[in-house]
């Protein structure tokens, strides 16, 4: 679970070359229908090591269904999902989480009345060793607090004065920080962020963007769902455009402008050849 472990997630199993690294998370031919409505129609997606992949698309393009399939919140009717080359079947969000995929939902999923440390460990609390833990089910609060502090300061969210502060006393950006820190702390393979900047002001939005970059730079690839084009173009390495239930194309912020991306998204422009495979990372980010 240390940073060192995470950075060497990247190389593929077969020891193959750097030319075509294996996607960390990949889905092929996903289909999901709700009665007569088709939410995703034969959709693909691939996330490569060390990248931020943004997913954009109009309402009803199937972004959220696609993401839910990856995070275990829905089971696709058809198609396959591969994590590090191995096929996986997620029946619930917990399955995906156990496999190392952490999702920060738009609704944040933090408990406002609990403190920061409690929230970081919500649903996976640690108990004291020995009889206190096994018989009396006593929580190891000291250890969880220390760990929480470490995770928060690793991500540079250090000005929070008190790890025992209730989350509801934090600003929107700080709460988002807690949610992102939780996913970064426990996600060993992939972090999925659903509209993380939607409810935030400009300043706080930028801080959360920096947080997302930090998560990637620590070696965790990120899938970012967002409606905010400037934010997408600012942080994404590649941009997956979802349209009419399938992947229209994949572009990069360098290959296309925001206006072009929106045109492709809405069907006003023909989608170009998708940029499959990771972006060459020569320039400084």
């Amino acid at each position, binding site marked *: 679970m240390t940073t060192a472990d995470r950075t060497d997630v990247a190389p593929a199993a077969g020891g193959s070359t750097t030319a075509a690294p294996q996607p960390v998370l990949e889905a092929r031919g996903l289909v999901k229908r709700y009665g007569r409505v088709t939410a995703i129609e034969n959709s693909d997606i691939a996330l490569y090591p060390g990248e931020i992949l943004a997913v954009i698309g109009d309402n009803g393009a199937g972004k959220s269904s696609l993401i839910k399939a990856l995070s275990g919140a829905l089971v696709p009717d058809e198609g396959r999902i591969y994590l590090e080359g191995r096929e996986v079947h997620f029946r619930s*969000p*917990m399955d995906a*989480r156990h496999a190392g995929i952490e999702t920060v*939902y738009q*609704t*944040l*999923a*933090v*408990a*406002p*009345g*609990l403190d920061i440390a*409690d929230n970081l460990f*919500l*649903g*996976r*609390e640690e*108990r004291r060793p020995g009889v206190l833990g096994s018989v*009396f*089910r*006593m*929580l190891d*609060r000291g250890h969880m607090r220390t760990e929480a*502090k470490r995770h*928060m*300061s690793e*991500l*540079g*969210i*250090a*000005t*929070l*004065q*008190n*790890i025992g502060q*209730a989350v*509801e*006393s*934090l*600003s929107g*950006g*700080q709460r988002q*920080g807690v949610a992102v820190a939780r996913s970064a702390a426990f996600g060993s393979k992939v972090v999925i962020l659903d509209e993380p900047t939607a409810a935030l002001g400009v300043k*706080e939005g930028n*801080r959360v963007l*920096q*947080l997302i970059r*930090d998560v990637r730079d620590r070696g965790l690839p990120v899938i970012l769902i967002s409606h905010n084009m400037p934010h997408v173009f600012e942080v994404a390495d590649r941009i997956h455009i979802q349209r009419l239930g399938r992947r229209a194309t994949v572009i990069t912020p360098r290959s296309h402008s925001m206006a072009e991306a929106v045109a492709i998204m809405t069907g006003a422009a023909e989608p170009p050849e998708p940029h499959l495979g990771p972006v060459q990372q020569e320039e400084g980010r």
Partner: protein
Amino acid sequence: MSSDTGGPGGGVAVAEPAPDPAPHGFDQRHDTSLLLRVQHVLHAQPTLGPLAVLVIAVVAFSILNERFLSAANLGLVLQQVTVIAVLALGQTLVILTAGIDLSAGAIAVFSSILMAKLATDAGLPGPLALFLGFVLGTAMGLANGLLVTLLKLPPFIVTLGTLSIFFSLNSVISKSETIRGADMPDLLPWTGNTIRVGGFNLTYGSIIMLLLFAGFWYSLRWTAWGKHVYATGDDVEAARLAGIRTDRVLLSVYTCAGALYAVGAWILIGRLASASPNVGQEYNLDSITAVVLGGTSLFGGRGGVVGTLIGALIVGVFRNGLQLAGVQVVWQGFAIGLLVLAAVAIDQWIRKVKA
């Protein structure tokens, strides 16, 4: 986290943190107004308000009548609140999950009748009758929990229905007749026996009550279950997304509450030295009153059992103190009602606290 940006009160409005050591310095504002600070303190320590009320009430009543503070009278107050406190403990668990249990008193009274009937009419030995009474009370709580989680009905409606059902069954089985404690095996009214602790007459029931509060204080504060109870009450959807099986939490809470009401039934038999089907109509609401006065929020996720114990004591102290001060019994309810309204208003105000 180590760097404290100015002590409390030393807030220089919303100054930019100059050379920010952290890349994402989410800055912290400091409120300086006294009222806001009180709001913050109450928000962080929800039991402080009720404690202040209790202390003020005790001081006021002891001035009004010097007999109030005598050990004998305080022991009496504790005896008077014991049953309500145990019911309120179960009620606290339910309210922490943003639910409500209108059937608390009904389960307690019905359980006490069942225990007594099993021990007398059915002729079972005391321990067995008591045990079966616990099991049946717990089952009633479980039934509430199943209706809330499986049928997804609002707790208010579920317990309104079961309240009526349990009281009705209670009348059927008891034939509306009181069973005297003298006719029961000694174990059932045992909780009414007292021991003297430094001038106080402490009943075994009160001791059981205090032990239960200690146990649930620990469970809520120091176990994952407790955290899950709070998280479920705070925001059930968020808790579910965080991987908590909220239905199981709810089921466990209603079941625990049922078990606690059954213990309350045992203490009730000791207190009345009988099992009467006609008491306890007011216990349902009294248990809620104690919880609310103790600072636990009806909206869930906030409060705790220490507050509830204080809340129960406030009710007891007011009833007893007003009586000693010569206020007519009919006005006691009036005073308690005002307290409840004040408590809820303050809770609403505290909830509006800003970062």
